């Protein structure tokens, strides 16, 4: 019986941790000053958040006796597709000529060391 309580505690912790990670990803999306920084939040923190939530769902349904590996499949799908979409969005941003806040552009760094004006950010 105490094993069920421990498992429920683990499920509750994973649910809270997953939603906190999802919130941190969206907070990064909303608050970071520059598109290339904003890309970090949804592509890493939100993926970890939905991974935690899927692990919680897997454990919860395993405890109830209806164990299925749909959650594992879904987690693999999200973990595979998020980097692809983030890469394509970063390429689209470079193509549209969005500038970064700091001097993190490798082409600009190899050339002159002049820092970019902080006001010239999208």
């Amino acid at each position, binding site marked *: 019986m105490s094993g069920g309580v421990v498992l429920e505690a683990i499920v*509750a912790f994973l649910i809270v941790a997953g*939603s906190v990670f999802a919130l941190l990803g969206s907070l990064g999306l909303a608050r970071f000053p520059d598109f290339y920084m904003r890309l970090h939040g*949804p592509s890493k923190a939100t993926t970890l958040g939905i991974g935690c*939530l899927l692990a919680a769902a897997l454990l919860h349904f395993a405890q109830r006796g209806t164990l299925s590996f*749909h959650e594992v499949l879904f987690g693999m799908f999200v973990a595979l597709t998020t980097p692809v979409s983030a890469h394509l969005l970063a390429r*689209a941003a470079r193509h549209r000529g969005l500038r970064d806040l700091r001097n993190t552009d490798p082409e600009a760094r190899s050339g002159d060391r002049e820092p970019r004006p902080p006001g010239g950010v999208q």
Partner: protein
Amino acid sequence: MLTWALDVASVLLAVSLLLAGWRLLRGPDVVDRVLALDTLYVNAAALLVMYGIRLGAGWYYEAALVIAMLGFLSTLAFAKFLLRGDLAE
């Protein structure tokens, strides 16, 4: 304990949806809006997974998978359109 965790998760996921929606409205570039839409899709799938745990039902999984797949494909289409100015050439 599980009910408390599900309530907390509902509030946190709703706030994250609101933050992504704020970025979707604010921009400033169209790439930011596409990224915010992608985050909205993933957060909606996470909310559905959480709701499925709350209900103890298995049907949530199909809905979350459909949302995630359509979101990925639409993000791909948006990025391709922004890169090429056309979807099929």
